[in-house]
């Protein structure tokens, strides 16, 4: 249970950064925190007490004694997608900085909303 709460807290911290921070890089940091929280949440859902990693690495392991592999597979995908989005976002940040010489959204007219 504590896992759920902590991952939701991490997500909210990230969301706070996205909503309130004025620095572009800080906002992207927030996005990556939200991702981290989601990933922890997903893996925690798949956890089973007393289970082992879902790999038949030695004889004698049975399916009953393993944690749920599906959330792990989903998180693998999600992590890769997360890094892809982060890279594109940072490329845009570099572009914006080259143009405005600032990362402060208050100083960039078209980013105000």
């Amino acid at each position: 249970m504590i896992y759920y709460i902590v991952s939701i807290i991490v997500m909210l911290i990230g969301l706070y950064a996205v909503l309130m921070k004025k620095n572009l890089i800080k906002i992207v940091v927030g996005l990556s925190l939200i991702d981290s929280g989601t990933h922890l949440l997903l893996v925690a859902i798949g956890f089973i007490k007393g289970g082992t990693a879902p790999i038949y690495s030695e004889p004698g392991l049975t399916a009953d004694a393993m944690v749920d592999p599906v959330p792990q597979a989903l998180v693998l995908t999600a992590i890769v997608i997360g890094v892809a989005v982060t890279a594109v976002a940072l490329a845009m940040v570099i572009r914006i900085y080259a143009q405005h010489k600032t990362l402060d959204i208050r100083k960039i007219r078209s980013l105000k909303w």
Partner: protein
Amino acid sequence: MKKLLATFLLGFIGFYLYTAFAGVPFGESKMKVGKDYLETTVPKTGAVNTVTSIVVNYRGFDTLGEVTVLFLAATGLGAILFGMKGKPEDKHREPSSILTTGAKALFPIIVLLGAYIFIHGHLTPGGGFQGGTIIATGVLMLILGIKKFHANHALLSIMESLAGITFVVAGILGLAFGKTFLENILPLGTPGQVFSAGVIPIIYVAVGFKVGAELAGVLDTMMSTTRGEE
């Protein structure tokens, strides 16, 4: 005012998220399809690592999409930073000769480690994505450690394309010789051996090369970008 609003919004989202997950028992099995995957992975796919068999075989379509996302990110990043390529930035300090030699000596070992990880994806933890990333960090080390080093983009993009084509062609071969896209058409072999699990190692090697080439390309593109017209 805005802070208050944001705090309220966060509290709102947090509360409802918590409510949604409060009914989910932690540490207990909620498996439905998960159980089937665990039970059928060794006999039906030949892979010992269930996560790998899900990622590459059962839900291989997702992975094809995932590879595409990374490919698109590399493509988009190149498009966004297009025309910002400046003269290679002056490194504040010349990399010392120890660093340069070390980077050159370590690079093959890192590539080997990455390759080991994606070749054994169906047996041990890890696979194409992890191995590919390790290779990309190896390239990063070269970029940092060797003065005026630039990744060979032509080579990277050819490698990337070929790896991507391999993945799709593996899918189409499944369609042609089996019945469905991405269906395994190779013998499963003995579970636990390197040459087993049918088409999984082939796809994961392709993924490894593709991810490695893409990420290396991304890093090099970003490194060789100027800070704008200063």
